């Protein structure tokens, strides 16, 4: 059984890490990171079979690809809190000579990262490739991804969507952060995704929906997705989230996509997020 209280408490610490990292360099993307914290915490602390003693091939493990690489602060915190590297290293986020680049990269050898991301739309293709390799290697591990909803405006996503269905890549669970926001404003005002569920279904995917900010639902739906693997269809979860979740003044707007809190705002944010494991 999943320990929901422990997951929630971990997520609170991850959210503290995010706002502190972004504040320290006055640079980064807190909005989406806070929105997806519950999802990524559940994935690494409950769902995935993975080994923090990192190796690139990840044989017999579940793999995760962050396609919307600007949620790097979130991923770095989760990786550090999972034991991939020391939490002190989070203090080097976005600074010179750091392994914690603005967007994730393999170049600096940061444990946990298997491909660079940041230029959007590429992660689903990479995930498809690694899922095929797992099948060729008779490796039963699953492949998970996270994408922004704005990212779905990239054509490559839909190339990969067709490809995954054609090749019956059924060891893949993609997740869309369906927060309805992108840099320039609400997704519906920029380039609407229309009926997103119908889009994925018509591309040959099994579609699930979940509330990405309700830990119980997150755990339940991802586990449900796992039971649907191996049935000839790729799976996507449309995950409703609130950008900036956990920090009231960052919620409900696209304005905190790529803006860092100032000293006063940091203090306010931290007062809303309990320190549960210990700050880095």
């Amino acid at each position: 059984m999943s320990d929901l209280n422990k997951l929630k408490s971990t997520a609170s610490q991850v959210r503290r890490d995010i706002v502190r990292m972004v504040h320290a360099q006055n640079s980064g993307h807190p909005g989406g990171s806070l929105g997806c914290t519950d999802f990524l915490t559940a994935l690494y602390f409950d769902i995935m079979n993975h080994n923090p003693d990192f190796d690139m091939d990840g044989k017999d493990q579940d793999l995760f690809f962050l396609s919307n690489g600007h949620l790097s602060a979130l991923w770095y915190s989760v990786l550090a809190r999972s034991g991939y590297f020391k939490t002190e290293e989070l203090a080097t986020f976005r600074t010179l000579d750091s392994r914690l680049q603005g967007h994730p990269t393999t170049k600096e050898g940061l444990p946990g990262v298997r491909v660079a991301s940041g230029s959007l739309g590429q992660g689903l293709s990479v995930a498809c490739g690694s899922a095929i390799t797992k099948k060729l290697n008779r490796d039963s591990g699953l492949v998970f991804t996270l994408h922004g909803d704005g990212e779905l405006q990239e054509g490559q996503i839909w190339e990969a969507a067709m490809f995954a269905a054609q090749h019956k890549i059924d060891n893949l669970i993609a997740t869309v952060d369906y927060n309805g926001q992108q840099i320039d404003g609400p997704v519906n005002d920029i380039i609407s995704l229309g009926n997103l569920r119908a889009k994925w279904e018509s591309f040959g995917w099994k579609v699930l929906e979940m509330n990405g900010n309700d830990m119980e639902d997150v755990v339940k739906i991802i586990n449900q997705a796992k039971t649907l693997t191996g049935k000839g269809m790729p799976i996507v979860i449309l995950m409703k989230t609130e950008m900036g979740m956990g920090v009231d003044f960052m919620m409900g707007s696209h304005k905190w996509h790529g803006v860092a809190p100032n000293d006063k705002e940091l203090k306010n944010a931290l007062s809303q997020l309990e320190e549960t494991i210990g700050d880095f």
Partner: protein
Amino acid sequence: MKKFEYKDKKDTRSGFGAGLYELGKTNENVVALCADLTGSLKMNQFADEFPDRFIQCGISEANMIGTAAGLTIGGKIPFAGTFANFASGRVYDQIRQSVAYSDKNVKICASHAGITLGEDGATHQIMEDIGLMKMLPGMVVINPCDYNQTKAATIAIGKHEGPVYLRFGRPKVPNFTPEDQKFEIGKALLLNEGSDVSIFATGHLVWKAIEAAEILEQKGISCEIINIHTIKPLDADAVLKSVSKTKAVVTAEEHMMNGGLGDSIAQLLSRKLPTPIEMVAVDDKFGESGKPEDLLAKYGIDTKDIVSAVEQVLKRK
């Protein structure tokens, strides 16, 4: 001058297909991807013989490059093939982020490169791809000259760890290099020793350089011919050794002058050994429809152009 002979003309893309099939037989980690051009790239034999390891991507080159990057995670060695235009310019950012920056062991196999693609015209005739690819940190760029060399190069890159751009072509050209050659990445091949000028050629223009040197020999000019099959990493030692002897340089390639082999050699020489240089390459123009041989002539990258470039550079010596 050494005599160069060939038994038949063959297309370099068939050399790629043959090399890929050889690799498929000997290394079960080799996988191949293609974007709806399996026949054009001569990948059929691999696809027929190893269907589990052949991945049809359809007309989705961006996805093909990303998929290839992902396939490396877990030890596969992907060879992703399509026309050079769609294997470089169209997918530059996918190669840049998911392959080169991520240091993935992906082999990008680019056929129908250059103007000798012919009748399809400028939309398909990429002559900027060497430049695009060589600018990417860590990317190896190879442009073999004939069937045998392309086959050997294909097998060699399968054993090399890291991203590679392998460039080859459509037309049948003299197949004159040895069938059993060893292909060493980054090692220039001295084809003919000479004393008056060094001709550095790559790809289809290597044979043209040989033809030019034969004509120039009749005029009493002794040409050193060097086949630069690997544009990056450039064999700087071989270039400097030859140029320090001949003190005059001509480069020849089926590519834009900007960003090509000539540009790489000029960059090296201007820093280490300033020397008069003439470049046989396409000068800032898009191509057009036509027969390969007619196009080479019209765009100034034919045998006669190498001859006049040599005569020109000797005046500057």
